[in-house]
């Protein structure tokens, strides 16, 4: 087991596309780190550079204290799980799991023992004699996971392993992977484009866009304080409401005269405010706020998301199920004074008042010390609270 340290990673493909641009990242030993971003943001390329399946144009990758730049994938002692499970179709589940060990010429009795152990861990003991074609997607992915952990590698790399599963199964497997990682305490780098998956899995999340790391932090930290406009518009369901605001004394004024408290750093012009749906409230047309019209409602059971058109700006508002607005209703939207909006520089897209460099990007490996305890949501919350 060991951490993964990436310094100045850059990957340019022969056709000239730069997939990853100067990426620095410290992943602590035993951490479950999620790389999140839209497709084409360079997250998979980063993962493949760690794996040794791609070779970086420049920069260093260290696994533990070993510089692995020139090493082949097989020499890095890491295991990878793929989106398409890549099970060998002509081998039974058992042989598939045993394959990496046999490739390393591990003794037969030892192979059997370890295959049985990892099969048990993933609850697939009764599937071992089947071939992949006779297994469901979820079962195949379990076999693939067993194959990854049978080698007891220094780190796991997961390349969107749940994308091909249906929604219900995905949630089950998500829990399972998180549990497995916590139990084994092995470093894991998990790539996904699904922010819900990232939020629920990661000890920390790294958000990538256009080959660059936008922000690194604990899930709630990233949710509450998106460091850039991109992150603000990417994280959360719904994502943050983003709109132009102007300074007016101690307040900020948004669309339709919506008034927000002004954070100390928010001065000057060209400001964009980021406001979570739960920081806004809806009142009747005579209420004290910006008038608008409900254009869509999403009832989620325990809450309802209203989309309100305020002076040509769509605002998402999270309300308890007791709120009974209907599409077309004339309403007013107000901002709760106890929440301070995040304010961004409209040109640079960066959060005002934040460190110019993403504050959490570099964290000394010992400093984070996550391990199993960090999987505790209370701990993640506490983490985020300090930021």
């Amino acid at each position: 087991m060991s951490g993964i340290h990436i310094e100045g990673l850059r990957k340019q493909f022969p056709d000239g596309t730069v997939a990853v641009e100067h990426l620095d990242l410290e992943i602590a030993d035993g951490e479950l780190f999620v790389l999140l971003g839209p497709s084409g943001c360079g997250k998979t390329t980063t993962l493949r550079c760690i794996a040794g399946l791609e070779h970086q144009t420049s920069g260093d990758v260290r696994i533990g204290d070993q510089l692995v730049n020139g090493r082949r994938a097989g020499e890095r002692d890491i295991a990878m799980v793929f989106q398409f499970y890549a099970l060998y179709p002509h081998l039974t589940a058992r042989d598939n799991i045993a394959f990496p060990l046999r490739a390393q010429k591990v003794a037969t009795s030892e192979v059997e023992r370890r295959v049985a152990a990892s099969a048990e861990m993933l609850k697939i003991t009764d599937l071992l004699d089947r071939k992949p074609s006779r297994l469901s997607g979820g079962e195949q992915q379990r076999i693939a996971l067993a194959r990854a952990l049978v080698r007891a590698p220094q780190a796991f790399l997961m390349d969107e392993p749940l994308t091909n599963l249906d929604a219900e199964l995905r949630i089950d497997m998500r829990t399972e992977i998180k549990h497995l990682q916590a139990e084994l305490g092995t470093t894991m780098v998990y790539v996904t484009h699904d922010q819900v998956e990232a939020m629920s899995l990661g000890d920390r999340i790294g958000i990538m866009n256009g080959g660059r790391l936008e922000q690194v932090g604990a899930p709630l930290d990233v949710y509450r304080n998106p460091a850039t406009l991109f992150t603000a518009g990417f994280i959360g369901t719904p994502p943050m409401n983003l709109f132009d605001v102007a300074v007016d004394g101690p307040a900020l004024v948004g669309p339709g005269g919506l008034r927000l408290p002004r954070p100390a750093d928010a001065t000057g012009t060209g400001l964009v405010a980021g406001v979570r749906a739960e920081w806004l409230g809806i009142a009747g047309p005579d209420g004290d706020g910006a008038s608008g019209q409900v254009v869509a409602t999403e009832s989620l059971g325990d809450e309802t998301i209203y989309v309100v058109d305020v002076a040509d700006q769509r605002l998402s508002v999270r309300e308890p199920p007791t709120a009974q607005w209907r599409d077309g209703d004339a309403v007013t939207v107000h901002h709760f004074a106890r929440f301070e909006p995040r304010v961004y520089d409209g040109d640079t897209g960066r959060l005002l008042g934040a460190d110019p460099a993403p504050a959490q990007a570099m964290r000394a490996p010992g400093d984070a010390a996550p391990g199993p305890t960090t999987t505790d949501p209370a701990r993640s919350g506490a983490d985020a609270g300090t930021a």
Partner: protein
Amino acid sequence: MLAVVLMLFPAFWMLITSLKDIQDVYAATVFDFTPTLDNYRDVFVSTSAAGGASDLVTNFSNSVIITAMATLLATLIGVPAAWGFSRFDIKGAKDQLFFILSTRFMPPVVVVIPLFVMYRWAGLYDTRTGLILLYTAFNLPFTIWMMKGFVDEIPGEYEDALMMDGYSRLQAFRQGSLPLLVPGILATAVFSMIFTWNEFTFAVFLTGSTARTVPPAIAGLLGGQSTPWGLVAAAAMVFAVPVLAFGFLVRKHLVAGMTFGAVRR
């Protein structure tokens, strides 16, 4: 039904012609003749006073050797090339692929004269090596293009997984993708084989008597004082058998190969 009759009629006519003696051939009867296997004997045994194997036997062995070698070489070179084009980021891969394909744009007759001159000069005229080289070069574009499609269909993750397990790039290809490519390789090889087996233009211009393959040899039977139609038909029948047999043997793979992309994984 009518289409089937129309399509099969030439083959049927060839079959009955091969069983007729020369009078019956010119009588053009359908069933009213005495079947004879003399023509088939003449395909293999020389009609000259000395006896022995006929020239056609030499032509057949030439055809077999040249076809087998050219198909084998095209496959051996083309499959790894296709894999390379499919898996690696090659500078100007598209241009290279287009260039490879462009060698097939010209009809053989256009290039056959310069080739003839080159072959004379290089001592390749009327040699099996010469034809093998030529057919290999001619089959390669087809093999590369077709195989690239097949390789593209196979997820690279198989090889990635093998490389993670400690195999080298090439070992990963052999262990991971190659077994899954077999239907595609067979399908491609059958097409290469059929093309080479039936090729006429190059063979007629670039061979004399030593390396002559069957298609120009059969054509050579025509003309002269009289045309031995029975022999021509019998030779053609014998000539058609190997391809039919091979196609029949690999038909399962052939269909699997051709529908590869259409099947949901």
